[in-house]
């Protein structure tokens, strides 16, 4: 990973959930959202290769809004909500540490929830490799399968985990429920 990759991972990707939520609110055709995300990320990355934005989160949502506006111009069907203001959705709050910490917890909850939804064999492979820290070889021995099978299963398991997270971002994270109860 080069320096720009690291910047992108540390600065832009943590807002993934907020971005997907914004797109769900602002764009009717939810099937297009993964592609929109991809397009937004590409724009951000290319722009940051020239010059990194001063406030990445604002830049991310400005880019999202611009893309939606571009798309809407080319669509024959007019999207009523496309200009939905990210500010109005409260996604542009500053990254003060309490919110930051909350996001980290929320992220863990999201991953845990997505993990729970995976089929047994995917849960198993992620657990052994990532939580118990076994090597591919050790996992192969334990499950009595070929190393190549472990490798391809791990790849598919990660992809499934990623999709499982993406499909459920519109549901509030459980942390939010909890905080309401605790208040």
């Amino acid at each position, binding site marked *: 990973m080069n320096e720009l990759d690291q910047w992108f991972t540390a600065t832009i990707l943590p807002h993934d959930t907020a971005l997907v939520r914004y797109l769900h609110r602002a764009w009717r055709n939810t099937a297009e959202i*993964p592609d929109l995300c991809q397009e937004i990320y590409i724009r951000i990355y290319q722009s940051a290769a020239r010059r990194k934005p001063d406030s990445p989160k604002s830049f991310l949502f400005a880019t999202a809004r611009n893309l939606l506006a571009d798309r809407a111009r080319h669509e024959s069907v007019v999207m009523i909500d496309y200009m939905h203001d990210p500010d109005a959705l409260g996604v542009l709050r500053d990254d003060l540490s309490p919110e930051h*910490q909350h996001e980290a917890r929320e992220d*863990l909850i999201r991953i*845990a929830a997505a993990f729970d939804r995976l089929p047994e064999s995917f849960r198993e492979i992620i657990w052994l490799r990532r939580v118990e820290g076994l090597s591919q070889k050790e996992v192969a021995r334990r499950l009595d399968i070929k190393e190549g099978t472990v490798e391809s299963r791990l790849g598919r398991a990660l992809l499934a985990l990623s999709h499982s997270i993406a499909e459920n971002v519109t549901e509030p994270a459980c942390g939010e429920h909890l905080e309401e109860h605790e208040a």
Partner: protein
Amino acid sequence: MNRIANEEAAARWLARRNSGHWSSGDEAEFTAWLESSIAHRMAYLQLHSLWERTAGLKALAHDSGRGVVPRAGVLLTRATQRVTRSEDSSRETDSSPRWRQPRYTRAIAAGVTTLALVAALLTFSLSRGDRYVTAIGATQTVSLQDGSQVTLNTDTSLRVELTDAERRIQLSRGEAFFSVAPNKQRPFVVEIDGKRVTAVGTQFSVRKLENDIMVVVAEGVVRVELKDHRDATLGTGDTARSNVAGISVTRGQDAAELLSWREGWIRFDNIALSDAVAELNRYTPRQIRIRDSSLDNLHLSGKFRTNNIESFLELLEKGFSVSVQQQDEDIVLSKR
């Protein structure tokens, strides 16, 4: 669709890169793939970030045991409980201790009894007592023949010698907690480089530092004696630390908190990052190093699992402006 194909390719590359088999040919092919399209790169970065974040699941491993994959629904419950708990950590008491007596403890205890019998049959002592050693990150509780119990903390080595006149422990490394069976005729003595910590019937811990020792008394009365016979008497809740000037005693401490390592916890109360790191490093072979001296001023509080350094690092990254990087086997902290 293009995006889906890219994601699948990214997943294959990620799994391959972490497979333990990665040739220079793979590297060249991967780089070519990554460079050929920015969409490839985006797909890879997203999946790579998720791969990194799945390490956070370690915080939810609890004591389910190795090789036991949690059933569907279990992790989410744990994750949400963890939110409740971390927001309420001040009055947290964990009702189920993390460590259970390892299966071999009983075998060792049985072995101790057998050894003691053999020793009694022989009229002379062939060995100088029994030796107990724990690995880094491990704890172990041993029942002694006199009814006392010893809990060894991480990376600890001690020798037990029970005679009619005295129960003697030689602590050559690390830290141990002693729950001493009362017996006025046979004092219980812990020796560290000529320093002696003596008890009759009580609960206390002794930790060997480079040149000094640290004693925490959970219950009863304990006497600390240096080589030059200077001494101090400690009661419940007292802690003592030997140093060049003698023995410094602090009264009225929360001994249970100071001894929470027995349940697998470590507690920091507004201590410097460097001290917290030194403490955590005792529990893991992977060492944390601080690269920026400007971080020395950072003070933190909190309660962490000794077997879960990740949650500590996660807090540093998310809550403070500290960047955490893996360097070979070590973890390097620098200012972000």
